[in-house]
């Protein structure tokens, strides 16, 4: 049974792919950036709760400075949450990340959310001079610093910190000051048990990214996260989000045929880079039917999303829409259909299996649970105090009315 029925959140994620123009050729990168701003504005108009941008440093994605694009969207929107999917904290300086996103938070009037992760794409490591062999250690340190920065910003107290991967901070107060209750931070995980445990240890909400295979297979990791929250004395009901891939079109057939060549091109590139066998149509169809590619007409995609959210018991869902070089016009249509048809339908489906006996879970998170939630892990008890009250509850959602379509 789903908890927090009233707190459901539905977002869309973009890696700002270089899309094809009307002539079938890739459009220039600067046009991709302007198109993405339009997509963000459209997402708000369509009633979507959040617009989230990835972070990559490769020639098929223009999302290397996502905070700048989000700022442009912020200036043209009022309600929609603006986020990252994900911020590769490992190869960023958390101090700079704070400055960028605290500024964005001011521009957007507190609408920022970050998903931080180790990154599944690894091109940022050589680019910024990090050693991939220290993948795990670097992320652990950067996340620790990030949580302490948020804690210091929330209390207004200066921060003193030292670590291995950046110069020490001696009684530093970072600017701009943070608007109270903002910079909600989730931890993104691709399914490594260690990442799941880490999110729970920091008391941060989890986003489970599923980019292949049956979402139901990830249920044990969700259970692990819940168990670990209890183990680390964190609020047991922190929200969990789910990220999958998908594409919506008026009919199942049109959706499948539009997505297929772009899926193929992406997987052909990955197969060469990773030594996998070449992708096949059968594999694509299997992913569409049973895996984590939610492709089809609105009713089909809504049913897949609702089923996955029920099975995994999650309250937040982000669709990475229209992957590959799908043209701008179809990306727009996709956002409209998600916001006006798919997500309202998912809300209806989930509401229909609502249960009065679970209303106790529907209460919003209190400030107290939120304070307990985001202190750094207990192996640094000296800093616990400073870290308390870092960030308000991550569950603050703008709700699209039911049946908006």
């Amino acid at each position: 049974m789903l908890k927090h029925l009233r707190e459901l959140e539905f977002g869309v994620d973009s890696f700002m792919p270089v899309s094809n123009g009307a002539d079938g050729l890739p459009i220039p990168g600067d046009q991709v950036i302007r198109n993405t701003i339009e997509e963000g504005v459209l997402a708000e108009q369509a009633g979507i709760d959040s617009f989230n941008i990835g972070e990559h440093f490769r020639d098929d994605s223009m999302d290397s400075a996502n905070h700048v694009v989000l700022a442009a969207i912020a200036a043209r929107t009022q309600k929609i949450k603006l986020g990252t999917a994900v911020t590769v904290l490992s190869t960023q300086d958390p101090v700079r990340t704070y400055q960028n996103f605290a500024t964005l938070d001011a521009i957007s009037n507190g609408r920022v959310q970050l998903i931080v992760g180790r990154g599944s794409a690894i091109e940022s490591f050589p680019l910024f001079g990090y050693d991939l062999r220290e993948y795990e250690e670097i992320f652990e340190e950067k996340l620790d610093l990030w949580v302490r920065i948020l804690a210091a910003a929330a209390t207004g107290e200066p921060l003193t910190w030292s670590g291995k991967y950046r110069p020490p901070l001696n009684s530093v107060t970072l600017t701009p000051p943070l608007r109270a209750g903002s910079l909600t931070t989730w931890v993104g995980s691709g399914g490594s048990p260690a990442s799941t445990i880490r999110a729970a240890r920091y008391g941060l909400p989890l986003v489970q990214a599923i980019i292949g295979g049956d979402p139901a297979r990830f249920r044990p990791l969700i259970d692990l996260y819940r168990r670990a929250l209890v183990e680390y004395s964190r609020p047991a009901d922190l929200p969990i989000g789910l990220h999958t891939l998908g594409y919506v079109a008026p009919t199942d057939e049109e959706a499948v045929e539009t997505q297929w060549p772009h899926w193929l091109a992406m997987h052909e590139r990955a197969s060469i880079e990773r030594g996998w066998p070449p992708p096949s149509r059968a594999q694509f169809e299997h992913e569409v039917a049973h895996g984590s590619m939610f492709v089809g007409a609105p009713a089909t995609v809504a049913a897949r999303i609702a089923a996955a959210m029920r099975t995994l018991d999650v309250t937040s869902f982000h669709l990475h829409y229209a992957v590959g070089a799908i043209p701008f016009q179809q990306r727009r249509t996709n956002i409209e259909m998600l916001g006006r048809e798919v997500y309202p339908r998912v809300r209806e489906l989930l509401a229909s299996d609502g249960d009065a006996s679970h209303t106790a879970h529907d209460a919003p998170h209190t400030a107290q649970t939120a304070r307990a939630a985001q202190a750094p892990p207990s192996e640094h008890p000296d800093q616990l105090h400073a870290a308390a009250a870092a960030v308000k509850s991550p569950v603050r959602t703008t709700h699209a009315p039911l049946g908006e379509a």
Partner: protein
Amino acid sequence: MKRLGIIGAGKLGFALARLALAAGYEVTIAGSGSADSIELTASVLAPGARAATATEVAASNDMVVLAITAHRFRSLPADLFDGKILIDATNYWEETDTGDIELATAPEGTSVLIRDHFPAARVVKSLNQLSYHQIDELPRPAGAHDRVAVAAAGDDPAAVRTVMRLIDELGFDPVDAGSLADGRRLEPDGSPYAETYTAAELTDCLALPLER
């Protein structure tokens, strides 16, 4: 009781632990640190598996799977697996093993380097070929028409036979892939890698000349 040790508490390690438990094995699993650090994870992701240290896993099992990031084998003591069957399920990945020139270039495949590091272990290359998704989704009972094949390669015929029996019990059709050096065929960009072949198809594929 049949026993299997697993070194590596990641996606692959736990997927293999679940399969082995289902096949009636007593499973001990270790991560890079203390048993405590993975106890909760083991209890949820592979209920019934015992969390332990790498040393305990090696001491209490005659057959151990190495399911770690490839270059980390160098951090394990050379005599840890003396006399044991060591199933090398690792793969060299540029992403995580970057800078390990020896692994990147290994002319006879990475398992030969692992044998050189653990000279008294009975190394068999196997269970590296499928992703953890596939390990979870593809096992079938013996005789199923869609049962997928998994190969084992090694220089100790008795050890290879034992691993082939394990493969069968885990739910795959075992195929003998020849010597440990022949095992390079099972690595990423060797052609059977990540393919879901039947035993006959995999055997045919391994008979083709290696393109690399």
